[in-house]
């Protein structure tokens, strides 16, 4: 499994990373292998590589984010890139210049890679086709969050190796989850079996057409899965009448010590964060021995370094 970065045979040709849906199995593995090489850098005392020296990476965040933005920032800095942060108020973006105008202005200042998080699905695609710069999707509406999907898969592969035939459950609000979509696309391409668990109002039946199984009763399938990836439940969904109360949600789908004890003994518990402790996951489980939540965070750094290097190399190879 340990391979040096940038030596795999697959050539990466995309200047943008918009989602995992459009990637092939080989492209996904190529990113993960590249990330594996970068993981080693994090263990050195001097955590720097020169791959993006002289390049400018821009964080363009239209939504609040702590860990994703910090992770991308650190990834860029470890690759010796210059980093610019732009935080946009969504409301001013509506009234003021359009996303495309913003992008073109920033590009005119010599930005090489734009990392964008946006409330609107498709915003990174719009930016990607308007700019010569690379565009990396850091989460767009309820569409995709590809680097989160990749780091989740990276973490699963560290424990299980090949994921073919592995049983992975995603629990919670699937409808509104970009993390779920990126996980599903990536995991299906690697041959995993994917189950979705949650209330019917938060899992559209159309997900069956993606090859996922759907379960409304968590307890019936609790010992079936090797991994439970627990999604954050957002309080505003309750206000929209999609589930009756937090208490009922916790009762039906919350992962606590009792439920953990009925899972496979080596089950992996994941959460993309931020956690609502005591709602979708209990304190005890989040901090317990089956939890890999902090590993996910540290692996995120390696995955994002890999992505930044690959998109930039594709852009340079195509003479942009």
């Amino acid at each position, binding site marked *: 499994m340990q391979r040096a970065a940038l030596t795999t045979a697959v050539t990466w040709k995309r200047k943008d990373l918009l989602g995992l849906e459009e990637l092939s199995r080989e492209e996904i593995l190529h990113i993960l292998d590249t990330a594996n090489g970068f993981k080693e850098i994090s263990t050195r005392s001097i955590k720097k590589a020169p791959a993006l020296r002289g390049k400018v990476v821009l964080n363009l965040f239209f939504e609040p984010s702590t860990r994703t933005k910090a992770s991308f920032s650190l990834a860029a800095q470890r690759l010796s890139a210059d980093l610019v942060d732009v935080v946009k108020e969504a409301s001013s973006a509506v009234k003021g210049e359009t996303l495309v105008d913003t992008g073109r202005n920033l590009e005119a200042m010599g930005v090489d890679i734009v990392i964008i998080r946006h409330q609107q*699905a498709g915003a990174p695609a719009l930016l990607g086709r308007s700019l010569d710069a690379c565009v990396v999707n850091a989460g767009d509406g309820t569409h995709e969050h590809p680097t989160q999907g990749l780091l989740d898969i990276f973490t699963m592969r560290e424990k299980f190796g090949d994921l073919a035939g592995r049983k992975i459950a995603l629990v919670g609000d699937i409808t509104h989850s*970009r993390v779920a979509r990126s996980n599903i696309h990536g995991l299906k391409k690697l041959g995993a079996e994917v189950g979705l668990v949650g209330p019917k109002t938060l899992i559209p039946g159309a997900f069956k057409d993606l090859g996922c199984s759907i379960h409304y009763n968590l307890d019936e399938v609790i010992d079936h899965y090797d991994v439970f990836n627990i999604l954050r439940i957002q309080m505003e969904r309750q206000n929209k009448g999609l589930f009756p109360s937090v208490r009922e949600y916790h009762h039906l789908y919350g992962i606590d010590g009792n439920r953990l004890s009925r899972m496979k003994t080596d089950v992996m518990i994941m959460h993309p964060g931020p956690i609502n402790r005591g709602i979708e996951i209990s304190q005890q489980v989040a901090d317990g021995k089956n939890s890999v939540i902090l590993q996910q965070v540290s692996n995120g750094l390696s995955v994002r370094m890999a992505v930044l290097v690959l998109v930039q190399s594709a852009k340079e190879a195509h003479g942009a």
Partner: protein
Amino acid sequence: MSKAILVTGGRVIDPATGRDESADVLVLNGRISAIGSFTEQGVRKDHPKLKELETIDARGLIVAPGLIDLRAHMGEPGHDSEETIAHGAQVAIHGGFTTVACLPDTDPPIDTVAAALFVKRQSEKAGFAEVHPVCALTKNREGRELTEIGQLIEAGAVAFGDEQRVNDEPGGLLRGMRYAAMFDRAVIEYSIDPNLGGGAMNAGYEAMLAGLPGMSSVAEELAVARACMFAREAGCHFHAAKLTTRNAVRAVKRAQKLKVRVTAEVCAHHLAFTDEVVRRQYDTNFKVFPPFRTADDVAWLKRGLTEGVIDCISSGHRPVPPQEKELEFGRAPFGAVGLETTLGVVLTRLVATGDLPLMDALAKLTVNPARVLRLDHRKGSIAPGLDGDLCLFDPKLEWEVTPDALTSHTKNSPFLGSKLTGRARFVVTRGRVFELSGSSARR
């Protein structure tokens, strides 16, 4: 003062009379005078007082009645930077349309006699296609107080409807239908239940993948079925605008079987695309309302056209300026221009594919909409005494839809980059001949 236009050697297709033959058409002083075999000398001999005779060589062309559009948003008043009535009427001519019904969702809405007269005056002044107002059924399109329907008809209203009503007031619609029935006018109801509205594209598999909020097809079925019931209660002619879903087509079919007076229409672009196109880079030119649906829905729309459940095909023309279409998909406004592509789309995606015979397709663009608008006493057919409105099109002309090939101010067409076969070459209306071949076709 008299002027004649002689159209020679074309294939005359007139769905209203079933005529399909090679013939000449003589237009005298703006009206159809005769169909038969004529020479210039013969015409001059028969009409000795003739001052001017213009001859169009229509060999290789199909001579149809001037096309009639039920659904064009003109933007004026209120949004005349997008499209004025005068310019929209000119764009219509480029598409082969000689009559256009414009919709009341303007600012202010067309809900007063003054506003209706304004539309007529702008149309008269421009001298291109005739633009007739569909007036609001209720004041300010709010679904509560009725507009002055009787006086609006005298001012030129051809039908009534509120478009996207601000509030859902079912009582207002029912009362409006009762009142409009008294004047034998159609109520055109916009077929989406506003309470179930919202969303950027069709709900389903594609919306799930795109991560965009979906519009459920049941919202359309509910609104159409409800309006059918109201039409039955009110004894009113209900025209179901721009159907897009299987179950809405079935709701109309059921009502028609029960002898409720319901006609229906589909926009040309809804026949050409499914919701799969949205994820092609989230191109906002594919954002229309109602949204593009599934292949199954499109098949049902075609079936509805074949069976006669759907009587009319409209352009659904709605200009949107580029700075608004350049937004993120979820934020961009709905709408597509369509006046200049409708004929080509019908010929390419409906007639050439064998889904609908040419005669039937033309009926849905001429006599049928004329009947919905109560204009069939003077429009929609090539018969002596009717208005001399003709659309001469080349059914074999291949053209690519490019921004330059469209004369509309805004270019928000989902067909950009598509090739269509068939385009208007000459349009005759109001005693004038518009030759279109050089200016826009075959670029």
